[in-house]
């Protein structure tokens, strides 16, 4: 055997406060300040009374916390003659959101699946068109869609809006699903075909159960996108089904003399609550889902 144990031994010593670490965490914290700042401002402002806001510092916490702005934003703020705040729009948004998310994800996932596993003639062209579609500014398509919806008789109905969301969610979602499905071994698909499963059999029994991560990503993206939509919501529906964002726009943009910043901020936060919650709760799954194949070109 060798000589005595002299010199260094065991783990290399590590200082937790090494310059590198200080730099690393320092940078991260500074960056986080940039990200948190607006949220901080929104929350703080929404808890202040108007006099306090007028006096001053938007960054400072409220001297006197008041939830009045939240109450007002939720239940009392007026747009035109309706003074029931966001509450009405909230349920409308839910009514729009749920079917839109379900339909758009269903269609896009089947699409991605077909693109990967049942490569049909022109599937490349089809995919290219979809990607092209993702670049089209919504404003450009307002008119053609009005005409389309009119022709199929769905204009002004909830279903019309759902179809619009599905169409515009399609490009990015299809891209995600396509990338994900192409990372699933093709053999699995072949095995299922030998087992006699058809297009739908394979989709529902084999592919779907394996795709949880990407569905989480898709759901998060769609919930955010559809919930935050204003343009389609206001153009393709009627006042009784206007989503929350229309109310938000009305509250924020209709000024009673002075802008009630606190109410605006409360309304903004209330409107953003659903997607924010979705992110806070499932942010981890989101990253995992993306890592699970969404970015493999």
């Amino acid at each position, binding site marked *: 055997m060798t000589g005595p144990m002299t010199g260094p031994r065991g783990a290399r010593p590590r200082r937790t406060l090494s310059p590198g670490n200080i730099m690393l965490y320092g940078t991260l914290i500074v960056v986080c300040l940039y990200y948190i700042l607006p949220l901080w401002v929104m929350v703080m402002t929404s808890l202040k009374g108007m006099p306090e806001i007028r006096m001053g510092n938007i960054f400072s916490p409220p001297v006197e916390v008041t939830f009045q702005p939240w109450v007002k934003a939720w239940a009392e703020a*007026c*747009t*035109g*003659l*309706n003074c029931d705040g966001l509450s009405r729009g909230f349920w409308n948004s839910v009514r729009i959101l749920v079917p839109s998310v379900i339909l758009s994800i269903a269609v896009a996932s089947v699409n991605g699946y077909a693109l990967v596993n049942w490569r049909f003639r022109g599937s490349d062209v089809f995919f290219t068109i979809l990607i092209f579609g993702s670049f089209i500014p919504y404003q450009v398509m*307002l*008119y053609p869609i*009005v*005409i389309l*919806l*009119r022709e199929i008789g769905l*204009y*002004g109905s909830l279903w019309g809006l759902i179809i619009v969301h599905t169409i515009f969610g399609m490009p990015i979602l299809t891209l995600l699903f396509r990338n994900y499905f192409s990372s699933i071994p093709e053999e699995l698909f072949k095995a299922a075909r030998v087992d006699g499963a058809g297009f739908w059999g394979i989709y529902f029994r084999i592919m779907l159960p394996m795709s949880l991560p990407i569905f989480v990503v898709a759901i998060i993206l769609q919930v955010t996108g559809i919930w935050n939509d204003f343009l389609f919501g*206001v*153009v*393709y529906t*009627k*006042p*009784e089904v206007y989503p929350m964002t*229309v109310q938000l*726009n*009305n*509250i*924020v*943009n*209709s*000024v*009673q*003399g*002075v*802008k009630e910043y606190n109410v605006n901020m409360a309304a903004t936060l209330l409107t953003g609550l659903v997607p924010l919650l979705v992110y806070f709760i499932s942010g981890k799954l989101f990253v995992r889902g993306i890592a699970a194949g969404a970015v493999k070109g």
Partner: protein
Amino acid sequence: TELEVTHWWTSGGEAAAVAELAKAFNASGDVWVDGAIAGGGDTARPVMISRITGGDPMGATQFNHGQQALELVEAGLMLDLTDVAEANNWKEIVYPPSLLDACTVDGKIYCAPVNIHSPEWLWLSNKVYEDLGLPVPTTWTEFVASAPQVEAAGKIPLALGNQNWQSNLAFGAITIGVGGLDLWKQVNVDKNMDAAAGPEMLAVFQAAADARKLAAKSTVQDWNQATNLVITDQAAGQIMGDWAQGEFQVAGEVAGKDYTCLPGLGLNEYISTGGDAFYFPKNSDPEIEAAQKRLAALLVSPEVQVAFNLKKGSLPIRGDVDLAAANDCMKKGLEILAGGNIVPAGDMIWSPDVQTQLGDLQAEFWKGQEMTPEEAQARYVEILKSGL
């Protein structure tokens, strides 16, 4: 019957005025379903047009008088109100008659005018001048002269919002105020391009170039935010239409005491008579059609006119109503109106396309600081020519 009414009246005074309309309509047993869309006409109009062309029209909808809805009428999408007009004798009572002309296409009437708006007003904060120990200006000229002192006191001389149409409006007001009525008529009514390119017009641009310096520190977006600067005495004045009065009123200010209004910028007391009108998209349901006609008649009725315009701060469309409750500014407007010192509104003379382009030009001119009056004038003429 339920009738959905879309409009973009959402600011304080406006909303209160709409409430009057709704109250009157509901009183007759119908139901006013409010479809307010905030953000001004530019946000709301696409929605309205989409709804109408998409085959799912609302019961009634606000448009500005004039060319905005012309094509919809021509396409046969609007309800013919001629019978209502005749039954209620609108031809006689609507004043000035140009309002009704703007509703008439091929001899048929398609809209019910509700108010008259004139953009050419200068609104001043009395307190700013009192604090400085200066007299409140009575003309644009005095206003400009006092500006350096205002500025020295850390106040903004002229409040101006960031949107294109506000710059355009200010320029229009300066044209009438500084350039005079004749020039204005030559350019806008007779569409005399030589006049538009002439030295008098250049002087107007010069005046506007001076004014934009006064507005350089104004950093708000919306018109009512700008008005608020005047209300809160952060700014000395604002060029804005008479609808600004609603904001002063909601803020509890009193005309003549807290604020001063100068129609035609105090130089030429003329006002243009644009305004709002309601259109009624065609509908297959006869019950709704009946309700539409009821609403149309109601809008022009004297009681509603008084109630509505008092709240809105605009002028009624008929000369035969008594606005005893009107405040100082409104009375000034009524006088001018009664005196016939009126000119047609931009919406009636120029197409929205030209107006938008003018707005773009003025926004660039007012906010850019570096565009010379000559340059601006040259482009101004170009744009007008495109609209001939």
